[in-house]
């Protein structure tokens, strides 16, 4: 990605974030670090929340996309409720996830996109998510070599009748698909 493309990426990201309710507050970040200090997973992030905004301002957003950072957000909203500037940072993380998927900019060593895509496929197919099917498809997609590592827990749940191999498709699946197809693809909200 050259400098022009990087500028375009930053511009598009900011446009999308500004379309989120209170998203424009991203411009008022004080770099105080309350977000990173509140984040339960920031220790594992190369770019914790505060650094993401620092990278954005330095024109280095691409480095954020290339790290697994954004998919380490567990969506706990601790940063959002504490930010003194009122930035809805969890929504910013969601926007980074969406933009990364749209642009094919996915961090290495992260399984988040595989999980999200498997989940979305299942919902489009049945209108509901079946845990057993979701986990099986996810493992085959993300790390087929580890397919047996989930067996012990799966077996414990299965014995309790908590792992149903039956799947349910909603009666109104055709209608739901018509709705989904009628809805424009979502950028930011």
């Amino acid at each position, binding site marked *: 990605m050259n400098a022009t493309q990087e500028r375009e990426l930053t511009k598009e990201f900011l446009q999308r974030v500004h379309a989120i*309710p209170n998203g424009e507050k991203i411009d008022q970040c004080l770099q105080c670090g309350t977000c990173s200090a509140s984040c*339960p*997973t920031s220790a*594992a992030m190369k770019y914790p929340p505060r650094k993401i905004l620092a990278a954005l301002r330095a024109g280095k957003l691409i480095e954020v996309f290339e790290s697994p950072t954004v*998919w*380490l957000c*567990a*969506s*706990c*909203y*601790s940063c*959002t*409720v504490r930010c003194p500037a009122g930035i*809805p940072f*969890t929504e910013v993380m*969601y926007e980074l*996830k*969406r933009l990364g*998927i749209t642009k094919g900019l996915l961090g290495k060593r*992260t399984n*988040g996109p*595989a*999980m*999200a*895509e498997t*989940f*979305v496929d299942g*919902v489009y197919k049945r*209108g*509901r*998510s*079946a*845990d057993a099917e979701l*986990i099986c498809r*996810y493992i085959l997609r*993300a790390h087929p070599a580890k397919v047996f590592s989930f067996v012990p*827990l799966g077996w*414990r*749940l299965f014995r*309790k*009748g*908590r*792992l*149903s191999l039956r799947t*349910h498709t*909603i009666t*109104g699946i*055709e*209608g*739901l*698909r*018509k*709705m*989904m197809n*009628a*809805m424009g*693809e*979502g*950028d930011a*909200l």
Partner: protein
Amino acid sequence: MSATTQPVYSYFPGCSLEATNRAYDVSTRNVARVLGLEMVELEDWNCCGATPYMAIDSKRSALLSARNLAISEKHRRDIVTVCSSCFLVLHKANRQFHDDSSLRGEIRQALQAGGMDYRGNVRVRHLLDLVVNDLGQEAIERHVVRPLEGLKVACYYGCQLVRPFGEVDDPEFPRLLERLMGWIGATPVDFGMGAKCCGGILMTTQPEIGLDLSGKLLKQACKAGADCICTICPLCQMNLEAYQARISARFGEDCRIPILYFTQVLGTALGLGRDELAWEDALTPVEMVLAGKGQRGQHE
């Protein structure tokens, strides 16, 4: 929606209550029956999309919720759910629908393409909010037949009921569960992590992080002398319950503790039996807790 007569609610179980967390479904239905809450399962409901859908497509994520809201509106009922994730996803979509007129137009048009419509007249509630704030102390105490004297409970909320909006309770120091536990005779213990994150979906996608986050919660609850952890979210329940052996090995200390849904704890005080609360489903030794004998408490 109708204030004059006893309200009837649309019950939204959510996908995980269909199998993995069916004990939450069973105990919820029975608790509601005893408390006289009329809840009718929302017909042909669809998945709310949870957090993964929002990470891919925000508009279609909102649309998924809107279909459920539309069905409930047809019956003039508010939605009640016991899953924190379903609660937040449905509630957030509902707020977006109200606040963003262009999105509202798009959603309605898409719904109409599938023969439905939504006008924005449904509220989304979590059962805990309903039990504590609508029914209240007097109504609950009246139904208690077996006060859980001496049971020490670590009240665990997780994230998505209280954050980001903080409308149901304080976003960092919620107290709904503690109040409810007091009404049924149990003793809430302060373990200081009631609204901390269990790791959510990261337990599956990034297990190292998930095990650490859930591990800290288990460790603190044990340290505080709790007999059990009481949860209000199916994913939290699974994360805290299913990996205790691995977490104990990882931290080098015994982090095993029964993990119960709040409906199971409440249901026990209401006199419901083991099948009505689906005790058999538990992976942790919940029997002693539900029999009114605090496992850890006995040693003291």
